[in-house]
């Protein structure tokens, strides 16, 4: 069946307009929908049967029972709604996430109504729901895994909250969206033959970078290099202007440069850089990150790491106003 786009849009707008958004969301009945479940239809059928029986036998007690059942059914509509009202969903601080890894979003469910809420299902769709009770005081937590396929800013898809409590005859559901800044970092990929590409050395010699510890060799002086490193002896012997090259082994300052991986796709380069940043950070090294438009460091520590990862995640994206 084809639905004209204009209708689809307006339906979407209508749904959208009723959908609460934010990093802490409370549902109200305006944004909730309700419909009978299969068990509800079964009950409806039985009520109709009872009604026919009562009419036929002119049995007023059967009428009373049937009407009581209808009453309970109608009251259940209100109760089912009520059970889902006044729950506050707050997204908890998000762990860092990389492309290709599951993004676990934890949220806390607290009761605003001072009442308990039972069997609240929450998830991305009907088939993958988590069900929990929300206590009257304190909170419940639910963790939902999302798939992050792209680096950069991540927009959480809408979530469905649903409940069939108390009797399973009616299902009420509502949608909402958490609007919270989430950054997805590039997928970390170990760069192949990093050192051959770099300087034609085997990788088992260790990570080499410009440092100031162990003497490694000489290379031609390039303007701007520290004068202290000039091999004055060689210069005195008129062999040319050489710079004593030192190797910084682990624990030393490193520089991760976009230029180190020529001929690779941008995303792959970012992945390599991410890997290197993570490696370096996990070993508390000092490092510098260089890629087009960005030069961070040298630096170390959590803040530096976060800055680097953010830059990598946002490469090529306009910086979102925060």
């Amino acid at each position, binding site marked *: 069946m084809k639905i004209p786009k204009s209708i689809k849009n307006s339906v979407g707008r209508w749904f959208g307009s009723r959908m609460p958004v934010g990093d802490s969301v409370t549902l109200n009945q305006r944004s909730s929908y309700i419909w009978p479940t299969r068990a509800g239809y079964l009950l409806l059928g039985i009520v109709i049967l009872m009604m026919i029986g009562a009419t036929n036998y002119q049995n007023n*007690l059967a009428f009373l029972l049937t009407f009581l059942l209808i009453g309970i059914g109608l009251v259940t509509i209100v109760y089912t709604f009520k059970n889902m009202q006044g729950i506050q969903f707050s997204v908890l601080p998000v762990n860092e996430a990389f492309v290709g890894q599951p993004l676990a979003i934890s949220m806390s469910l607290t009761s605003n109504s001072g009442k308990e809420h039972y069997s609240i299902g929450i998830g991305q769709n009907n088939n993958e729901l*988590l069900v929990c009770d929300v206590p009257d005081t304190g909170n419940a937590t639910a963790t939902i895994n999302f798939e992050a396929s792209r680096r950069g800013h991540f927009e959480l898809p809408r979530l469905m909250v649903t409940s069939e409590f108390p009797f399973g005859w009616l299902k009420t559901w509502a949608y909402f969206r958490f609007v919270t800044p989430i950054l997805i970092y590039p997928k970390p990929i170990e760069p192949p033959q990093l050192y051959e590409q770099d300087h034609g050395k085997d990788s088992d010699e260790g990570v080499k970078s410009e440092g100031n510890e162990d003497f490694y060799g000489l290379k031609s002086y390039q303007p701007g290099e520290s004068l202290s490193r000039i091999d004055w002896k060689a210069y005195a012997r008129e062999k040319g202007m050489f710079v004593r090259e030192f190797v910084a082994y682990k624990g030393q300052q490193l520089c991760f440069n976009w230029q180190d991986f020529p001929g690779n796709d941008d995303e792959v380069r970012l992945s390599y850089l991410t890997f290197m940043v993570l490696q370096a950070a996990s070993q508390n090294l000092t490092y510098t990150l260089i890629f087009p438009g960005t030069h961070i460091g040298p630096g170390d520590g959590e803040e530096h790491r976060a800055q680097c990862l953010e830059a990598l995640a946002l490469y090529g994206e306009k910086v979102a106003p925060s």
Partner: protein
Amino acid sequence: MNSAISKRQLQTRELPIIPIVIAQQCVLLPLYFFIPLWIVALNLFAAGLVVWSMKNKSFEVDRWLKLVITAAAIVGILVVFRKFSGRDAGVALISAMYGLKILETKKLRDANLLLSLGFFMLVAGFLFTQKPWIALYQFIPIIAILNALVSMQSIGRGKVVKRSLGQVIRSLSQYLLLALPIMIVLFLFFPRLGGPIWRMPGASTAASGVSDSMTPGDVSSLQLFDKVAFRAKFNGSAPNEKDLYWRMLTLGEYDGITWTRAGTTPYKLPESELTGKELIDYSITLEATRLNYLVTLDRPIKAPQRSTLLKDFTTYTPFRIMDRTRYQVTSAPTLPIETQLSDTQRSFYTNIPQDGNLKTKNWAQEQRQKYQSDAEFIHSVLVQINQQEYFYTLQPPIMREDVVDSFWFDYQRGFCEHYAGALVFIARAAGIPARVVIGYQGGEKNPLSDYWIVRYANAHAWTEIWYEDLGWVRIDPTAAIASHRVEQDLLTDYRQRESLFDNFDIVDLEDLGLFKQFEYWMDQVNNNWNDWILDYNSQRQRQLFSNWGFSKITNEQLIAFMLIIVSLFLGFISFRWLHQKDRKDQVARAYEKFQSKLAKEGLVNVDSTTGPMQLINQLKELEYSALVRSPHKSVRSKYEQHIKAIEAYIHYRYQNDKPDFKAKKNLLLQFRQV
């Protein structure tokens, strides 16, 4: 902290068997009184098996076992009832199937089916009895079913599943309490059809009491049933109990053994005959009689709707009374009937079989000669009954041939049918038109209310003798029996008969025994139950609405009213629930009251964003400026008190993780002191 489980887990986990079994057995319990005991045992056995296999995981109910049990149930029912149709066999069958369904309840869907069908099963009980107790009982299975449904829906870590019985009842009663008004509205407004859609055979209960023929010689023991035949309510004062002769039908034809009805024609009483007569208005609620005749107080002047007044002043309905029926009648006890009798009628009402009962026939004809008039003759017969050894007994000897002879001359003991039959026979033998009237005599006034209960035990037969100019005159020969010749146990056991004889007791309201009081009270409950619940039909529905000023209401209007009222009700409760922004607790309310009090005194400016800290700041500024003006201690302490209360509130609100009842109490006290 609660954490979540996945929905699949919720759906595939084990069913809460215990609540489901409880709900099922609660549904079946009333039926257990009406179905064969072995089906009860089978159902309980099946329920036991399921509970057992839940407790012992190693034991599982085998498929063959299920099959054997089910087959046994079906075969058993077929053997016992020889059919599946009809009320008893049908209910036995569905009870067995419903009971055994628990063996097949493994998934959520099975359980839903079992529980929903439970509501339908409850109706089956109404086929057997419609007493108030079964209606009240319904709440128990309903709560049990709802509880089972809730248990299935709960994830179990909340407080729902492990609740005490009291909590379950309290929380689920909320639903019932709110559903009750809806039920009442639907019950009142839902349009009723005039008749059944189809009729099922069966469901027959023997109605005793009055039948449309009378064979006194056959009866060796008359059972007096306490069952209610009808109830009567007088608009105005009731006649004397002695005069309560409830006429049902007349028997004019006699074949020597059995008295039967004679064909008669409809009759319309001319208005003129009613002038100057005392009229009695009353309504009667008649239980099912399975006869075409209504009961009226002797003598009805007009037939109720849908019935016809016949020439013998009985009221005939074109259909048998199969249900409890209520009608309004007016009677004129002193109304003379048929002052003129045609020759054919005269010969009809003096007709007796040529042969048989010759002794009585001759005796009657001889006796008649001794008296001037018919009335004197009849009186002499009554005197004979009174003076001679005539006994009233409920265990008369069986009289096969010449019934009247053997009663009148040999045994001289019998009950009303014997006496009435004999008197009519004697009168006819003497050439006086006479007939037997049967119906009820007397009744028992419910002292707690204003209606009379007439029971089967009040069934009575008397006579009508036709006199020139007077018409048919009621003569009750049974009443002529001397009271000392009424068997003593009758007087004590069957007080219903007391009023027939001279010395009867009047029930004194003040001396009413507890048991009697309870009996009357129960009867009144029953009566109201019948009136308002069981008898509410399309006719009463119309009547009710016309009483409210809506005469000629259509079914569509009824439905519209019904829907409007129910939606208003639902709208009201949902509005109250859904729009009350976070129901505030006691402390928050007290704080708000305190805050608005301060605002009223003009001390602070409060709007919706004012927090408690801001309030403190405002108060501090005030305190400062007040102190600048007059550095008095009382000024200071006044503000200090307010500030302290707010600080305590902040502490209670934001720095407490556990509810602290002592702090709460103190806080409320502090706010109140302001």
